[in-house]
């Protein structure tokens, strides 16, 4: 049985197709525009095309993410925290802590052996810690987003950035550039500062290995390194985990269908 998950984020919309709650058939991502529904169906169509499947072959579609209520073709919706936790466990079964870091903010959750969320927390509203800040820095420094992390990784003496406010952090970055601090040190400092906020949130829910990172920042090696240094432990961060939310949604859909059919007596 094939189920689908669509994760409608503020920046990117991701879709995934899953077979029998186990096998990943396809994933895809597009930029979220103004029309959540349109971006969602684009991402979904792309995933279907990758897998060479038609809409009719998908038994159930679960929506998640910021725009979950704006996807008219969903069967059900769940929150991105639940979906990411499920997705992380699907890809890394020993996961205890899940960190989902997207563009806007970061969410940390801790799950028990059964995969049930026992505690979760999101970064505080004031002091946003997320990928959006890094995007802005990329914009300012005219470095491509995908190269940002690599430049930062060359740093030997990352600067310490103390501001809580990301608006003012931007001007701190500008100040540092003016003081001719090497670009890589500034960038690594910026990555560390986001990682610091994320780790703070994770510590509030309680850190236990294994920690799995999901969301857009798995694409950023410098962020992963900053995170590992701050946590003093390794973090699962394979690229597939970018789609954890969509995959988790698909998995939850699968479970729900199974429950329904067993309730109906159909095995």
């Amino acid at each position, binding site marked *: 049985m094939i189920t689908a998950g669509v994760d409608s984020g*503020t920046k990117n919309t991701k879709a995934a197709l899953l077979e029998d709650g186990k096998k990943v058939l396809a994933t895809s991502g597009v930029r979220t525009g103004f029309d959540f529904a349109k971006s969602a169906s684009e991402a979904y169509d792309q995933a279907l095309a990758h897998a060479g499947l038609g809409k009719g072959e998908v038994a159930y579609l679960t929506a998640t993410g910021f725009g979950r209520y704006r996807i008219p073709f969903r069967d059900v919706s769940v929150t991105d925290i639940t979906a990411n936790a499920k997705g992380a466990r699907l890809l890394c079964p020993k996961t205890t802590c899940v960190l989902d870091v997207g563009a806007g903010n970061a969410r940390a959750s801790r799950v028990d052996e059964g995969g049930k969320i026992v505690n979760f927390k999101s970064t505080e509203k004031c002091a946003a810690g997320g990928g959006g800040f890094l995007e802005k820095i990329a914009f300012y420094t005219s470095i491509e987003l995908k190269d940002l992390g690599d430049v930062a990784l060359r740093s030997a003496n990352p600067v310490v950035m103390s501001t809580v406010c990301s608006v003012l952090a931007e001007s701190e970055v500008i100040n540092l550039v003016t003081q001719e601090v090497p670009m890589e040190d500034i960038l690594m400092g910026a990555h560390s500062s986001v990682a610091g906020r994320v780790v703070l949130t994770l510590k509030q829910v309680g850190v236990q290995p294994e920690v799995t990172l999901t969301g857009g920042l798995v694409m950023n090696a410098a962020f992963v390194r900053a995170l590992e240094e701050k946590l003093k432990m390794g973090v699962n961060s394979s690229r597939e985990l970018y789609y954890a939310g969509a995959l988790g949604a698909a998995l939850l859909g699968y479970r729900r269908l199974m429950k329904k059919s067993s309730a109906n007596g159909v095995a």
Partner: protein
Amino acid sequence: MTGAYFAGVDAGSTYTKAVLLDSDSKPVTTAIDMTGINIVSAIDKVYHAMLAKAGVNEREVGYVVGTGYGRYKVTFGNSQVTEISCHAKGAYTLFPKTRTVLDMGGQDTKAIRINGRGEVVDFSMNDKCAAGTGRFIEGSARALGLTLAEVGDISMRSTKPIKISATCAVFAEMETQEQLAWGNKLEDILYGVHVSIASRSIGLLRRVGIEQEVTFTGGVSLNRGMVKCVEEQLGSKVNTNPMTMFCGAMGAAEFAREKAMVAAREVARP
């Protein structure tokens, strides 16, 4: 005295602005560019672009005053003055009846009260938080894919503003998206954004005490929607014109002119 011209350079968090005055305090020309990551080169570029536009040689400039966040980066400047004094001076030069100045820039909002000679009597700024500044509008504009010039005008079409409580620039994008997702009209959301920011800056103005006339300066004074909101909440007109964005640089240039005069008098004295 070497030069017949006087320059002010305002290196702000968002834009770097420069103004050239002649010896009668008349603006000769202005120049502006994004400050961006390299403030020193932005300053250099803007200053030289201005001179080129005016066809004035660097040696003809008698005195340069730097202001704004990057005032110490105006390496060729003769002295620095904070942008509070400069905005006051600039507003007074542009509108001599000014007694209260509201300056809204990229990450700072300032309220300044001045006396009949254009001197600062009292001032107040937003606290160490960029909530409620021009950056919020930039964020909303970005979320909506609009230019800065458009947002204000669109907001003016609103008949029924949506209440926006957050004025934190970091959450501007998210809140704007959220309101859109709930099917609210673009102009109503934008108007709500303007209302909420205007009310914060009126609070700052009240701190220093509002005396007529009020002059609105800084980049946000170009935003007609914001001008309207401020006027509505104040219950009176405010002065703005295309030069008010350059007010800080204008004030700096005026300071440059005055300082050069004083220096010249001292030299002239045997």
